[in-house]
């Protein structure tokens, strides 16, 4: 049920669909990343979520309520969302620096990965998103290159994905 006071979040999801239709998938992908990065600059360095040793994870999916409600109202997962996820995950697999990409399960993951990653960079760490769990299907998705760089196995990540939706290895960058 939409009320004027809570329409912004749904309007944003419709905005993503419109952006893909008007400017193409690649542009929409970059647009979402830029929003996440700009919000990170406003918020400053840091990590959000739970932490165990050098693992940072989100025990709840931050956008699942909004996203799942939207999909129900919309009737199905918008094709534009699927195209964005597929493109991002294709880039993750093909790019030399594929470890830099999210193991994506939802379209909103593009936004929060760029946000969390930039905040981590400002704090002097690289967040490697080794795996994610889809809030809709509970399927696990991994980032193979991030796993390799983090020196972790899928089994290592599964332990966290049983209780989390987004799992990152904290990779401390050497200070000059």
């Amino acid at each position, binding site marked *: 049920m939409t009320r004027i006071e809570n329409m912004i979040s749904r309007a944003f999801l419709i905005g993503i669909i419109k952006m893909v239709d008007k400017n193409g998938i690649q542009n929409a992908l970059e647009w979402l990343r830029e929003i996440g990065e700009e919000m990170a*600059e406003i918020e*400053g360095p840091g990590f959000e979520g739970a932490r165990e040793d050098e693992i940072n994870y989100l025990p709840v999916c931050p956008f699942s309520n909004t996203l799942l409600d939207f999909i129900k109202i919309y009737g199905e997962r918008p094709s534009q969302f699927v195209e964005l996820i597929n493109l991002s995950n294709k880039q993750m697999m093909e790019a030399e620096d594929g470890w830099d990409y999210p193991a994506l399960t939802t379209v909103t993951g593009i936004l929060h990965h760029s946000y969390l990653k930039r905040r981590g960079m400002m704090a002097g760490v690289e967040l490697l998103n080794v795996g994610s769990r889809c809030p809709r299907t509970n399927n696990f998705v991994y980032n193979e290159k991030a796993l390799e760089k983090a020196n972790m196995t899928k089994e290592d990540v599964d332990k966290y994905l049983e209780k989390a939706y987004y799992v990152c290895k904290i990779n401390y960058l050497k200070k000059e």
Partner: protein
Amino acid sequence: MNLIEAEKLYENSVKILKNNQHEKGGFYASPPGTRYPFIYPRDHSVAILGCIEAEMMDEARRGLEFVLNSQKPLGEFSQRYDVDGNDASYKDLQIDGNGLVLFAMGKYFEATGGLFFESMADRTFVEKHWETVKKAVEFILMNKNEEVDLIHTVNSIHEYPAYEHGFEIYANSACCAGILAAVKMGEALGEDVANWKAEAEKVREAILTRMYSPRRRSFIKCIRVKEKSSNPIGYDAFASSVIDVDVVEYAPAYFELIDQHDIKNRYTVRRIHDNLWDKEIGGLNRYPEIWDRNNGGYGPWCHFTCQLANHYIAIDDEDMAEMYMGWVLDMSHNYLLPEHISTIERFEIWYEDYTNAKILRDSKLTMIENIRNHPKWKDGMAYVTIPLIWPHAEYIRTYKSYIEKFG
């Protein structure tokens, strides 16, 4: 009360503060390897206040340096930080942190000067961090509602939005006192802080009128309002009041916005004592049991009991002061103080409630194990999170006041 034992607890509390300050300046909320090995500005600020009282000025300055350097770009001090000063929060805004940091900094500034304030006060430190102070005050004022002149928050001292989302007494008192501390520091530096002073006075007046119930003869916990800029707030979706007794209704006096002897404060403390003193095991509970957010089982908290002991010391009620402080002393185990104390029966009720409701988080499992393994379990008691640094800092403040007044 056994004053020799009381002194030993004081001495160990000083050691606890020293041993739980990370080399970068942050005070852990509880030691590494236990439940809260992070730096929470709320707990951290009280640890600094404890250091000041124990004349550990170097530790206090390093603690302030740590938290002031960790300020977020908009001026906020977030819920918690890691030892490097990186924001590691997982909860929404807790604006009392801004007030507490400023309040502790003001106390440090006063204490460095003491009787020779003009010549001795650490102006260099305040000058160095003046831009941070400005941003911290502006962030508080950014969250002030112009219709009622109160500061809006989502969480406050109990991190419990169901009862704290809106204009909450502890957050408002801390923020008001924080701005007033910034005003004092600014005046000492010759800065123009007239606007801050006027704004703080508006907040103070609003606390004393809008958050005091003459018919109940008590401050109230919270005016629930969803959005900080709601205007008129009467149309806000949450518009209502929380009138249940909460131990932090004592906050206006704790933060020195009113005198300890003020009748509003004395009546409020009476209501707190009547309703929250634990009739089975003594000590002060933080809020009514029926709020049912009692991790580890409902029971009294050491640092809140210390705070009210301070009140009784201030109004020269030695019997009550001894009853409160003596209880804290009795509850210490090997001169260590827990977050709070419960009984096995209450622990099991909490465990049942949370298990049945499926709201028992994984992170609580270690806490449960520690409670069951603690030697006091065999005495029928549940000691929850021991040691916690906060009660040791509050105990230092209480002990020093007690000895100064009655010792």
